[in-house]
């Protein structure tokens, strides 16, 4: 499948963002309303939830809603409050060398992926990352040198809370250190289970095991795949090989003294690299986040795309993902 990947920069919410919204909204709208719009919380409750848990984001939210045309559905969608459930796979790990580096694979269906890297300077804070849902992020980095990324936590429970991409955006908009991020992740409710790994320029790191039905667990895990402390959703775990991927990554951390490059390359081959695109869990990209340099890099088996927060160049790439390869048994 062909992905037309874009890197876009816009300091303040404006015409570019409005254009992106127009582009993605029909698909997102269909997805968001697939169980009927009445299945989602109303505008008042959505905005109230934002005000209660991410008050700093409300002015920005209002601004984006305005740019999106101000409709009720758009406003409710953009609040990320209790969205329809979604899953992904993903692996992420912190390189054991001296420099803080977070590497992650994003395993998801190319059909439901925005293929968009967004750099913003909203509210005076420069942030870049892989965009989801127009202002959410599935990984990213800010100008304070804080970087983070998410993996699905492998649990079916859905509850009252926010879609995790907005929580990641919120952390990057308001935090500068891992300790601050940990406090936010422990506090903000998520609507499904996610593992969020955070690292800062001091190389302090944590992984927050977030869930809608229990308190967030802040761990010192350097690796996260698709389960939390124990495998709870056996078929998903088996299908995505989460235990094998975790074991493999832990081996990498402790058995090998290896260069950054070698560590990164391990993400581009099995068992971390997944080609189950037709089943929604193919590795769409590998991201390398370098908090000290304020840089990130997107990687594929044969190419890389460096991105610099302070020297960001808008560009496009065409990425071809392998099609219908179910032979990955």
């Amino acid at each position: 499948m062909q992905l037309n990947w874009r890197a876009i920069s816009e300091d303040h919410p404006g015409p570019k963002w409005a254009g992106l919204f127009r582009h993605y909204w029909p698909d997102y709208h269909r997805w968001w309303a697939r169980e009927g719009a009445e299945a989602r919380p109303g505008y008042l409750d959505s905005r109230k939830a934002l005000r209660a848990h991410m008050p700093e984001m409300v002015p920005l939210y209002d601004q984006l809603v305005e740019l999106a045309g101000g409709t009720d559905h758009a406003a409710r969608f953009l609040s990320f409050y209790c969205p329809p459930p979604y899953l992904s796979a993903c692996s992420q790990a912190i390189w054991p060398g001296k420099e803080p580096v977070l590497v992650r694979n994003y395993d998801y269906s190319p059909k439901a992926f925005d293929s968009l890297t967004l750099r913003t300077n909203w509210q005076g804070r420069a942030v870049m990352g892989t965009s989801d849902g127009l202002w959410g992020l599935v990984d990213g980095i800010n100008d304070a040198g804080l970087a983070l990324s998410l993996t699905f936590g492998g649990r079916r429970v859905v509850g009252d809370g926010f879609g995790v991409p907005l929580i990641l955006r919120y952390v990057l908009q308001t935090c500068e250190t891992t300790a601050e991020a940990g406090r936010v992740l422990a506090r903000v409710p998520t609507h499904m289970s996610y593992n969020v790994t955070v690292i800062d320029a001091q190389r302090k790191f944590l992984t927050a095991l977030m869930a809608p039905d229990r308190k967030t667990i802040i761990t010192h895990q350097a690796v996260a795949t698709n389960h939390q402390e124990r495998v709870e959703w056996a078929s998903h775990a088996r299908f995505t090989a989460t235990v094998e991927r975790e074991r493999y990554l832990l081996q990498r951390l402790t058995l090998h003294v290896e260069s950054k490059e070698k560590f990164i390359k391990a993400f581009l081959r099995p068992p971390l690299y997944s080609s189950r695109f037709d089943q929604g869990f193919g590795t769409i990209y590998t991201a390398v986040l370098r908090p000290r340099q304020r840089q990130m890099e997107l990687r594929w088996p044969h190419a890389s795309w460096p991105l610099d927060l302070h020297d960001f160049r808008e560009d496009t790439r065409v990425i071809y993902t392998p099609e219908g390869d179910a032979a990955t048994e």
Partner: protein
Amino acid sequence: MAAELKNISEIRRHFHRNEDPIYFISATNFNLLGLDEWCKNFKYISYIDCYGGKHPNTFVPSEQPHAEFQSIEDINNYLLQHKEVIDLIKRRGGKPKFVFLMFDEETERLSKELGADVWFPKAKLRQKMDNKIETVRIGNKAGVPSVPNTLSVVESYKHLNEICDKAGLGHDLVLQSAYGDSGHTTFFIKSEADFRRHEHEIIGEGEIKIMKRIDCRGSAIEACATKEGTIVGPLMTELVGFKELTPYRGGWCGNEIFSTAFPPKVRQKARELTFKFGEQLRKEGYRGYFELDFLIDKKTGDIWLGELNPRITGASSMTNHAAFAHADAPLFLFHLLEFSKKKFKLDIKELNDRWADPKMIDSWSQMVIKHTDDTVDIASDVPETGIYRMDEDGNVDFNRFDYHRRAVESENEAFFLRILQPGDYRYEGADIGILVTRGRSMTNGFKLTERGKRWIHGIKAGVHGRPMPTAEAGPALADPAFKIM
């Protein structure tokens, strides 16, 4: 209840006529290999069939979809819920007795559902004993000293250094978290880079045992705490961290048993300490089989307690097949005796003295062969279980099928137990199999012998894999006509 068993002969007879169905449930039957020949109605229920269906007392249920196993306990809990396993146990009738290598409270619950007794102390007690920090405490009470150490939560490398300065341990350290197998939770830390590699296993993991690193030999000894006293097996050497066998630095990869493995004084001391430790375990409420690792200082011969495994272990097959085990009875038989509620009398001192006699010990070694390359693929060929023969040029060939390790006739033969099955993932650290030879596999200086290396090479040469299928995402240059927005 019938009459009291008064001597070894009666104990042996009792088990040869045993009517209770006893099951060893585990991933493989390796740890208690051969015990079915001492105890009637003793069966193995395994997850992996190392024998291709040719072992008469091993039952392997067909593979069912299951959750990813995160531990041996998970495998056992899967087996206990498998219909074919339940059918087998019901069909054979009687009041089943289960023994395990590892089990947890869920295993206990499932065993109860099946109307079975678990012939081990409760999981909760075992887990408490298995905690390395608890081991130090029990050792101290029993008068069995541990390597100079301190116990502390560790917050950072700086914090670790402060702790060590205060405790006078220096900065060349061995750290262990409370639980875990050697090689997985034992970290050698000399620098900040070492610390970074393991910090995710140290920070936030609670109290850590911080030891001064000493220049030592690893050794293992197994024992069984019975109501009549603690029966002590022989002191074995440990094969540790050989790169031909394991990718884990400091990881256990085999054992040797031979009468002169350590100087007589060290052997005697280790036996005494093990006896004392066993007696203390009984006071703590533990009984049955256990294993101790002793660290023996290369220079001084000082002997320190390394760790306690309150269970059977990977070395149990060595203890239970040495000459003394054939002369009297395998140590594990006394474990079964202890849990059978059968009345027995035993002169433990006499037995222990006899087992201390070098004449009772013949020389064997076992090597646990793992995949040591940093590669992942799918195993296509793996040498099958049986007896292998080495020719004069060092080539290793399959000679005949057997599941008795004592069928190894000479040092030119070896018994190989296949663990990795064709079709399994072969990844760094995956078990390929276990090789048992007569004679030694290490030199007096605790290096692998040339013969040992040839055996490993010979087996590994028969293991082949096919690459994992991989697709490639190849980005091409951007289409210049593609418009943003």
